[in-house]
């Protein structure tokens, strides 16, 4: 049996209420419902999640790795964007 015609799906799982869905992997399926069913069987066997999203891999538009210099490197020199210059008063915990 060939699965050459089955599209690829990206799978996102929410591990518990309040957290966001996280990318966990990909799989092949004929349609969206089958993709969710397969994701349930492949990625939630050990109670990893309570909600599943699937997105066809074709529908994901990604940034170009060749542009990483101009996209990401300029941020490296902008240390003032990190809130590390505040003095934390005594007695404030959990910071």
């Amino acid at each position, binding site marked *: *049996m060939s*699965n050459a015609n*089955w599209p690829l799906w990206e799978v996102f799982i929410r591990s518990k209420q309040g957290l966001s869905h996280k990318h966990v992997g990909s*799989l*092949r*399926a*004929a349609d969206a*419902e*089958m993709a969710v*069913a*397969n994701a349930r*069987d*492949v990625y939630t*066997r050990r109670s990893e999640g309570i909600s599943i999203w699937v997105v066809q891999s074709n529908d994901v538009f990604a940034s170009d790795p060749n542009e990483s210099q101009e996209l990401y490197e300029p941020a490296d020199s902008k240390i003032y964007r990190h809130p590390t210059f505040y003095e934390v008063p005594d007695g404030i915990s959990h910071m």
Partner: protein
Amino acid sequence: MNNNLFEYLLRLGDDSLIIGHRLSEWCGHGPILEEDIAMTNIALDFIGQATSILEYAAKVEDKGRDADALAFLRYEREYRNVLLVEQANEDFGVTMMRQFLFDAFRKPLYEALTKSTDAQLAAIAEKSLKETKYHLKHSSEWVIRLGDGTEESHKRAQYALDTLWRYTHELFFENEVDQALQAENIAPSLAPIRAEWEKTVNAVLEEATLTIPQNGWKQQGGRTGLHSENLGYILAELQYMQRAYPGNKW
């Protein structure tokens, strides 16, 4: 000991054990990786159900046997599963059709058993029902996709239905065991369960563009221990270790 309850538990437990074993035969042979995992997960659900049910059966029998002794050391004619669950896997279409026809029966049966006056049986049904709802969804989706898929998949799905239909009548087998347990509200009447089974089966098969065979031939025997030749082969594999190395544990 309650002979009727023991007999009834063997029916439930053996159905789960044998269909679970059949599904486990797909391990490593699934048509795609995801489906291989799905079938193995479902096989394990059934083996888990068989374990709880046969453990309870052994307790009801009270003759010093445990679930393993019931699963691995009975002879063919002592098994009470329906003929449907022991039928050969053949191709994926036959396996999924067999699964669907069985799951559509199991779901309303477990729903009814959650109201059993036997607390242990009701608890087992409650736990198993959640698994069974997913099994039915899984097998229904496949029957629809195979039936209403390509010309080849439709042909094979129709063949599967034509081959297996004769075994579905036995799902609703009832005798004095059921009558005795129904009088105490331990077991439900199968008539309303059959009505619900027909509703599910008709709806899914219609969506799958499959035709129910008109041939009225009904095959039965499993509930009274008269099995097809398939069960002998299953038991040979299932029981080999315990027969060759009695009492062996791992």
